[in-house]
């Protein structure tokens, strides 16, 4: 079931400190493995998750620019870290701090991605929510083809204000 057919509720599920969502995808973002915690929080059965696109849990509040940054980092062989709001099958949401790594074969070619997601600090959620709200407002104020650039511009300006790289900002939130 795609996330757009689900009505988001203002109901949050909070991950415990000692829980991890671990999953892998192929290079095209199709889920190839999940753990029980992913099944639990997403609300989907394992069979529904496997082979689905990872955006099955994408929340409509998330700026498109964040996912652009995620995929461009991974496709260029870099890891990605960030705060992500996810949508469960039942409309509830859960925040994660996501760390995603490319996986390579013996020739060094990227053959997929592995993600570890865990509970973020509450104070980080408040700060990133403010940033994401501004990014999404910018994205929605322009034509869809210009949305990602608009979101990235807001993110870039936030970094410049703090004189921090994206990675430094995320680490300090």
């Amino acid at each position, binding site marked *: 079931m795609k996330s757009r057919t689900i009505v988001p509720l203002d109901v949050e599920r909070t991950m415990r*400190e*000692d*829980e*991890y969502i*671990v*999953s*892998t995808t192929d290079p095209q973002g199709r889920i190839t*493995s*999940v*753990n*029980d*915690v992913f099944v639990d929080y997403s609300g989907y059965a*394992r069979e529904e998750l496997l082979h689905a696109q990872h955006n099955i849990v994408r929340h409509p509040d998330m700026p498109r620019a964040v996912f652009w*940054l995620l995929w*461009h*980092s991974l496709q*260029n*062989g*870099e*890891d990605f*870290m960030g705060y992500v709001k996810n949508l469960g099958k039942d409309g509830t949401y859960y925040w994660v*701090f996501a*760390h995603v*790594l490319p*996986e*390579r*074969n*013996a*020739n*060094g070619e990227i*053959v997929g991605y*592995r993600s*570890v997601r*865990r509970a*973020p*600090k509450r104070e*980080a959620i408040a700060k990133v929510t403010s940033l994401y709200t501004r990014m999404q407002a910018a994205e929605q104020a322009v034509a869809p083809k210009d949305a990602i650039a608009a979101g*990235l511009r807001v*993110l*870039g*300006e*936030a*970094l*410049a204000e703090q*004189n*921090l*790289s*994206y*990675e*430094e900002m*995320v*680490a*300090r939130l």
Partner: protein
Amino acid sequence: MLAAHQLRWGIDQWVAFLKDKTIPVLPETPGRLAALQEHLDGNVAPRDVTAIVLQDPYLALKLLLRVEGHRSKTLGQETTTALGAVLQAGIDGLLRTAADAPPADATRAGLNDCVARAVTAARIARAWASQRSDISSEEVALAALLAESGELLLWHFAPELPQKAMDELRSGRALRTLQAQQQTVGFSFKQLSLTLVDAWALPVLIAQLIRGADTPRANIARLAGDTARHVITHPENPAIPADVVYVGRLIPGASLEALIAPLPISAEFKQRVLLAVARQGAHEDVK
């Protein structure tokens, strides 16, 4: 200060420029070696100086270039560990190498951060790799130490370039490290490192580990580098628990305490990381 034409150089020109330059050593390295000699009354063992070599990626690179340059290509094994390089050079050879070298400019914050990442990565890599009996922790440590050789040389000989890349990131004009480097100089610093390694004809294993194929040694070296970067960025970086989860898959027999122990983070944060990853689900393999 770089000349205007140098700002337009491509990777091949930078490799040609850098590969024959006199590599510096960290300003504290000669003092450390002298103090070691004094403390041991001149009876310095190779392992003692190896510890100092692993704290100075410039010295490690100089030493490796020296011994590989003297090795017969048809006879003699490649040198792939810091201890091996020390043994090949001899204590006197090492001391001469360090004494004759110019000092790196330790006033540059970016250079110090790059050195810290390399040294930290080597320390973590060695500790993690030692948890597996089927790989040489010393080889993994040397590869992790030298993985940023390109950027280390740029910080000394052309600091404008890595500084510009850092400015791209902190200005928001680039959101990814590779993007910043491409926008600034047109190539990645990792590619510069690999091209230099080829130009110097350094051991194939070193190049393989830096390049990062899917082998336990290369994966541990790469993860150690990522973790070092995370720790240097922030000592309580939220990425650190995931780093431990990832490396745990590569070293399934290691305890979580052993994987966390070498991380240069506070004891209190180590305990929090341990609690965060200790639940069985975090260490399980996925289906």
